[in-house]
């Protein structure tokens, strides 16, 4: 019986098998398969479930000190070049496998409830399985090239899923934007991979790091070239992990169904960038400048996301900007040379953010009963409020998520975020200040979301507000019909995953306490020992106390403003500083810039090139033709449809020439 590590290739293959089977079924027997909802869901859930079981046994083995396993085969070769592919299982991979399969499984179960009324139910499950397969493949990739392959595949799944409701214009644009912005990052990643291959002759993580070091030492690679290559590769993670300025696609991607937002755009795919940077740690550790760039980009992203989240009225968009901000924290950790801390935050964040998104899905699902299937209404917090009494499970889990992300001990977010802030304090004190302030903003906007959604009075039946929102979104209020039902708690397929996710959201942080970090012990035993040795309460308490204090301050402000309504922030801040408010509400004007500069710019350029093609290049052709009376335009007037005749002339001419030259050539031969 082979060990679980030997069977690791099955982990991505199992969901792929399920996806291919149902996908082929959908193409060949569309109606029949669309009716077989339960069998399809069962098949795909068991495929992902089997992958999860395998992942957990691998994690268990790795915890018990099993050695990493790597298998390679030649995928393509030409001349002296060999492109290997295969799979690798190590502690980092094992952690990610367990994480992704767990959340994917829960999201599949949740989707059974969330998509119950959707006619694309089977297609949705197929895409989900396809995504799980690609994401799992990415995790076990042993080299940069294979990472790139799966990197693109998860991007494709994201495209398909964001554009899932393809009759919505917003979804169509968001899907395309997500793919194209990611391709901008992949442009850098691809060039970086090629350059590193040129410089080191390797695609392997360690091989690249060693090769580049040797190349620099031997002088065959210029230092500027090495720096440039590292930064180019970093463009990939910047796009995928929504780092400034390539974050613009992620909030728009919320057009997709909410289970997707939880799985892909919060917990797993967007973390792939952070994961890749962690994989490339041997490379980046050689270049402090690159690390500083990563840290600065992370910090900007972290602050930008939190600041925009302050003013969002759309529940999902608020969570999306929160994700952007948290990904910034992770990137900051990577820049501080602390990949373990970054991955730890990735794990804790995956659990509580998935729970928050699934919770928001539960809210939206309930809201649709009242305001109808219109995202502009169902996701807007101005129409929510007072949902706690009607949706106890959702509200309690959402509340737990809010505490966890705000960094209140002993919940998960506290330990991981504090670890990052501690690292930043030691490496880049200025960045720590920004990260510290952002922690306060995080607590504030999360509790703002919570209070607006779950506390106070229910505002869903306010038709005047509905009409106002629809008009603001450019839709005709008279065409919309509210359902006028009532809000109620979601059924068990949706409530159960929330409850399950609440457990790690509360507890998992305890695995990473700085004095005895089991998490670091698995990923990097030496670092764990070092951490435990250097740990002192005297250093830990002031920093941790400060972060808790600012979080509490943020929460208190939210309580005062949105629960007790003692202060009116709208008047206090927005009224006095309209410029700041407009700046935040317009998302730092980055979307506008993107639209004006890149979208319209590229269209204009393309039109001009086409103009040149039609008028100049083809114009010369037609002109020459007219002048010699041999062109299509010229011939068109001379003859009327006897095409065959001309073909015959050409043919006869050719034969004639051949014979002529043959006769001339014959005697010589």
């Amino acid at each position, binding site marked *: 019986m082979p060990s679980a590590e030997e069977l690791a290739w099955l982990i991505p293959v199992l969901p792929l098998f399920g996806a291919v089977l149902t996908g082929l079924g959908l193409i060949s027997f569309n109606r029949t398969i669309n009716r077989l909802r339960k069998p399809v869901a069962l098949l795909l859930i068991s495929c992902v479930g089997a992958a999860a079981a395998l992942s957990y046994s691998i994690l268990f083995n790795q915890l018990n000190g099993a050695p990493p396993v790597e298998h390679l085969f030649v995928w393509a070769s030409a001349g002296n070049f060999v492109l290997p592919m295969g799979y690798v299982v190590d502690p980092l991979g094992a952690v990610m496998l367990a994480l992704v399969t767990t959340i994917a499984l829960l999201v599949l179960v949740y989707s059974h409830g969330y998509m119950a009324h959707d006619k694309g139910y089977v297609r949705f499950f197929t895409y989900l399985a396809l995504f799980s397969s690609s994401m799992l493949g990415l995790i076990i990739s042993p080299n940069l090239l294979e990472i790139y392959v799966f990197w693109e595949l998860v991007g494709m799944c994201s495209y398909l899923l964001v554009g899932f409701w393809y009759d919505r214009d917003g979804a169509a644009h968001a899907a395309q934007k997500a793919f194209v912005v990611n391709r901008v990052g992949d442009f850098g990643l691809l060039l970086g991979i090629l350059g590193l291959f040129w410089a080191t002759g390797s695609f392997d993580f360690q091989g690249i790091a060693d090769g580049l070091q040797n190349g620099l030492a031997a002088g065959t690679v210029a230092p500027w070239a090495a720096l440039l290559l590292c930064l180019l590769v970093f463009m990939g993670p910047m796009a995928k992990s929504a780092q400034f300025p390539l974050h613009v696609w992620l909030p728009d991607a919320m057009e997709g169904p909410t289970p997707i937002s939880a799985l892909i755009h919060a917990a797993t795919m967007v973390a792939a960038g952070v994961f890749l940077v962690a994989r490339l740690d041997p490379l980046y550790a050689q270049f402090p400048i690159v690390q500083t760039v990563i840290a600065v980009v992370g910090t900007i992203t972290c602050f930008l996301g939190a600041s925009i989240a302050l003013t969002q009225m759309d529940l999902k968009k608020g969570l999306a900007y929160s994700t952007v901000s948290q990904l910034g924290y992770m990137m900051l950790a990577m820049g501080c040379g602390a990949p373990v801390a970054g991955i730890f935050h990735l794990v804790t964040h995956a659990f509580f953010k998935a729970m928050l998104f699934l919770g928001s899905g539960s809210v939206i699902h309930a809201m649709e009963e009242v305001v109808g299937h219109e995202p502009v209404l169902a996701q807007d917090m101005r129409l929510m409020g007072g949902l706690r009494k009607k949706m106890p499970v959702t509200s309690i889990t959402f509340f737990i998520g809010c505490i966890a992300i705000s960094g209140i001990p002993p919940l998960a977010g506290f330990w991981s975020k504090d670890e990052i802030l501690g690292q930043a304090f030691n490496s880049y004190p200025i960045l720590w200040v920004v990260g510290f302030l952002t922690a306060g903003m995080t607590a504030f906007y999360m509790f703002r979301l919570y209070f607006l959604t779950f506390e106070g009075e229910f505002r869903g039946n306010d038709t005047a507000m509905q009409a106002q929102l629809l008009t603001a979104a450019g839709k005709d209020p008279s065409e919309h019909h509210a359902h006028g039902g009532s809000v109620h708690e979601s059924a068990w397929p949706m409530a159960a995953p929330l409850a399950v996710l609440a457990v790690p959201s509360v507890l998992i942080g305890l695995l990473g306490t700085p004095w005895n970090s089991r998490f670091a012990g698995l990923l990097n035993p030496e670092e764990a020992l070092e951490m435990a040795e250097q740990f002192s309460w005297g250093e830990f308490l002031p920093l941790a106390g400060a972060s808790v204090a600012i979080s509490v301050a943020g929460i208190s402000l939210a309580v005062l403003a949105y629960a007790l309504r003692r202060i009116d922030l709208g008047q206090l801040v927005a009224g006095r500083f309209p410029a700041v408010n407009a700046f935040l509400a317009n998302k730092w004007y980055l979307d506008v810039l993107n639209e004006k500069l890149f979208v319209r710019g590229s269209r204009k350029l393309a039109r001009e090139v086409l103009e040149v093609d039609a008028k100049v290049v083809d114009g010369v052709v037609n002109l020459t033709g007219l002048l010699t009376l041999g062109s299509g335009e010229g011939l068109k007037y001379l003859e009327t449809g006897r*095409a065959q005749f001309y073909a015959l002339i050409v043919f006869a001419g*050719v034969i004639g020439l051949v014979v002529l030259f043959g006769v001339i*050539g014959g005697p010589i*031969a």
Partner: protein
Amino acid sequence: MFEFAVAGLSDPVQATVPWLSLSILVPIVGALLVPLVPDKGEGKQVRWYALIVTLITFLITVAAYLTGYDPSLSGLQLSERVSWLPDLGLTWAVGADGLSMPLILLTSFITSLACLAAWPVSFKPRLFYFLLLAMDGGQIAVFAVQDMLLFFLAWELELIPVYLLLAIWGGKKRQYAATKFILYTAGSSLFILLAALAMGFFGGGTPSFEYTALAAKDFGTGFQLLCYAGLLIAFGVKLPIVPLHTWLPDAHGEATAPVHMLLAGILLKMGGYALLRFNCELLPAAHSQFAPLLIVLGVVNIIYAALTSFAQRNLKRKIAYSSISHMGFVLIGVGSFSALGTSGAMLQMISHGLIGASLFFLVGATYDRTHTLQLDEMGGIGQKMRIMFALWTVCALASLALPGMSGFVSELMVFAGFATDEAYTLPFRVVICGLAAVGVILTPIYLLSMLREIFFGKEKEELVSHTNLVDAEPREVYIIGCLLVPIIGIGLYPKLMTDSYRSSIEALVNRNLGAMEQVISPTAPLIRGQAPVPAVIQAPAVGAS
């Protein structure tokens, strides 16, 4: 130094069964027998007949590959040589090596699918299928013949069916498009004839047009440059290379779906194949001078055509320009002096043959339903045509080089091959790779915008009320399925395809590296029969020039 080249080419493995002659003659004889097929005039019987003939041809080529072709050999195989018209110095010489065998298979494969795609054709069906079958034989002949005069004959023979197929079954501007096509290609192919005659008669030895004989000749560099330039124009029109491309959007814009599949799937590959066969293989000294130009032209193709495709509002012309853009990678691969890059060019030809054919087939199938090609008049049709939407999405993703499909592998091989090609200076490589990679961003922009405008969003009421948007029928799903099997198969395990031509490409690249060394240091002594030059040589860069 050409002794080595000759050693690679002059030991052809004789065929036991004349597979290649059969694969050329079966469709041509089949075409001549079309008038005898009983048919009531609507094409319901002829189409079965034509399909069977193309399938037999396909099976013959497969049999040739399986029984007579050893992919580990770099030289000519399945070789047949019959003195045809000895007085004219003309020999019926056919054979296949790594450059031609995959393309012969591609031709017979795509043609049989095009036959199936032509199912609804009811206008003059006999003539249509006659031309289709003649084209099949002609195209296989282009790849299989081993004599430059025969090649020229096959190349010209091939044009006539295309011309007629365009002129009779084309769209509204078919006369203009067909005439433009024939003038462009026939005009440019004059250069092939001139080059063939020049190469046949000059360079010493007895006049002969066989590739092996031509390869054995020692042409002067000036002569090579002249021939190379002429051939580059001829093949550049076919490939096409910007700015010789303007016939293509017109021809593609007017052709019906099956003809379209053949144009994109096979015709463009004739240009790439001929570049490798003549320019690279027979004129190595000139190639080492011209290669940087090929690479620059390749980049221009990629970016220029991607931008024009983005701005196009006509679906067919949009895809036509995207073909031009993809052929840019072929040019870069051909221009690189690395086995990886040239292999990539070869794979890109095969891959684009499959993907281009599938996209053009889908364009035709969509047009049959919407009766418009203007993107402004489409929109939201994904709700009625879900399977068609799925097929379109898969093929568009294949075209934008999604990993797991063949386009990704071929583009990656070209990129990696060129990036590590020590024959060019580092700055040149950096600039070229950077610019070519812009294509990586531009391709999804125009392809995904196209999908969005056709399928996404609200249904256009005008379109829905005037047309009958039925979903894809099994025949259409089957055709795309057949094309997707190799696309995904190559994408998952490219060695399946690359191994079939690997040794030929390696031999070719090694010869060219040797030739480059010769050009750069003509006085350097070269020992006869020397082992192949190592893949990475430290030659002064030619790219900076």
